[in-house]
């Protein structure tokens, strides 16, 4: 049976894993290669590394980080942050990533999706969408808006429509972050996740709002998500992907166990 994926996400700044709220008050949380290997050993189904520096000067540092992280990692490995051209993606793949996550660059130039997909396959292209419900709209969920720049600036696109376009252009997966839920620990936005999942034929990864194991069970059932990003939950009582998955299995969620 196809299982629900638990994805560990590492935010990386200048070659180090960092933790912080909304990219401020960053605290050093270790070496990316060590942390990724630990998550894989502790049962994560996939690793996402997000470069939050994403500056031109930082590219070489990122590629070195990806290379070191990929070396001993034998689960799917996705890298995002600062990928603006097919050449950027190619370098990240050559360094050992299996997938790239693209966000604002895809919005600015949607052809980027097919440019990467045609060379490396749709399975290698994850389109990340930062979403907020539109409280003014008749249907705040279906008319949720895409945001860029860390959720600060509206992109002028509706989430469902952009997800569909990304699929048509050759995205292999959608990584959907609810900016409303992010950091709240009050649960994923299941309604929004379900609206996107129902609109596209490709898998949807839910992100933002996890606080308890039940939140994951909820986004997999009600939210129709295929995978979920676990970040802050590891700091609040649940120590590893394995223990998260063991609790999910007890709730009847199909997960990869033993792992």
């Amino acid at each position, binding site marked *: 049976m196809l299982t629900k*994926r638990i994805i560990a996400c590492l935010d990386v700044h200048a070659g180090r894993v960092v933790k912080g709220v909304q990219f401020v008050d960053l605290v050093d949380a270790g070496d990316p290669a060590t942390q990724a290997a630990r998550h894989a050993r502790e049962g994560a*189904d996939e690793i996402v590394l997000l470069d939050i520096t994403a500056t031109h000067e930082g590219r070489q540092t990122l590629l070195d980080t990806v290379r070191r992280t990929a070396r001993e990692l034998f689960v799917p490995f996705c890298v995002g942050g600062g990928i603006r051209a097919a050449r950027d993606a190619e370098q990240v793949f050559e360094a050992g990533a299996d997938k790239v996550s693209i966000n604002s660059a895809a919005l600015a130039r949607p052809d980027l999706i097919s440019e990467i997909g045609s060379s490396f396959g749709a399975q290698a292209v994850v389109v990340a969408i930062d979403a907020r419900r539109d409280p003014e709209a008749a249907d705040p969920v279906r008319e949720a808006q895409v945001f860029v720049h860390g959720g600060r600036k509206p992109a002028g696109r509706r989430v469902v429509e952009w997800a569909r376009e990304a699929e048509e252009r050759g995205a292999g997966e959608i990584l959907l972050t609810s900016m409303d839920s992010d950091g709240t620990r009050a649960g994923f936005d299941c309604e929004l996740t379900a609206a996107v999942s129902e609109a596209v034929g490709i898998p949807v990864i839910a992100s933002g709002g996890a606080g308890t194991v039940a939140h994951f069970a909820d986004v997999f059932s009600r939210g129709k998500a*295929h995978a979920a990003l676990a970040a802050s939950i590891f700091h609040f009582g649940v120590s590893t992907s394995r223990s998260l998955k063991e609790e999910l299995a007890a709730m009847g969620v199909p997960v990869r166990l033993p792992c």
Partner: protein
Amino acid sequence: MRVTVIDYKAGNLTSVLKTLRHLGAEPVVTDGDLSLVEAAERIVLPGVGHFAATERLDATGLTGAIRAAIAKGTPFLGICVGMQWLYAGSTEAPGQPGLGHFAASCTRFAESAEKVPHVGWNSLEVRAGSRLFAGVEPGEFVYFTHSYKAPVTADTAAVTHYIETFAAAVERGNVMGVQFHPEKSGATGLKILSNFLAWRAKGASC
């Protein structure tokens, strides 16, 4: 152990090369040097992306060289599209023939409420006696990402259920294929690749 890895410009080889090195093999890559296929101790044909990309194997003469290497007993492993290429063809690219080592053809998953592609970790049911899956316990998980698949036949070495039951792996003598990505499938994947690297013709001495 030198392993010839075939590059037909479909996707990136980094993960496969890195994993082979991790297991102690020495991968050498060729995108058209047929001597590397003729002299190969092992051949791996990776592949992600579109079946049409295998046209390059015909254009470069690699198809003929691989056919000859297989005939003389060189162990061969196809991964993902590399497994599908072992069959007669795929409805993904109807004009492009596969190697035809296995007679069946690959088809897209049937329309259903489930997502296509099939992406994620799914479990294996392994046929008794498979050498590629020696030591793999029932229900172990491997990582898939694909929209097309091969049917279950007498040569199927493992099956997986998604929408329907399909061939997760094929194995006949020295020719093996896996629909999933062993290089991305954790300890289970490493065990399967190790089995391939350790494969010897029955009765052969060390």
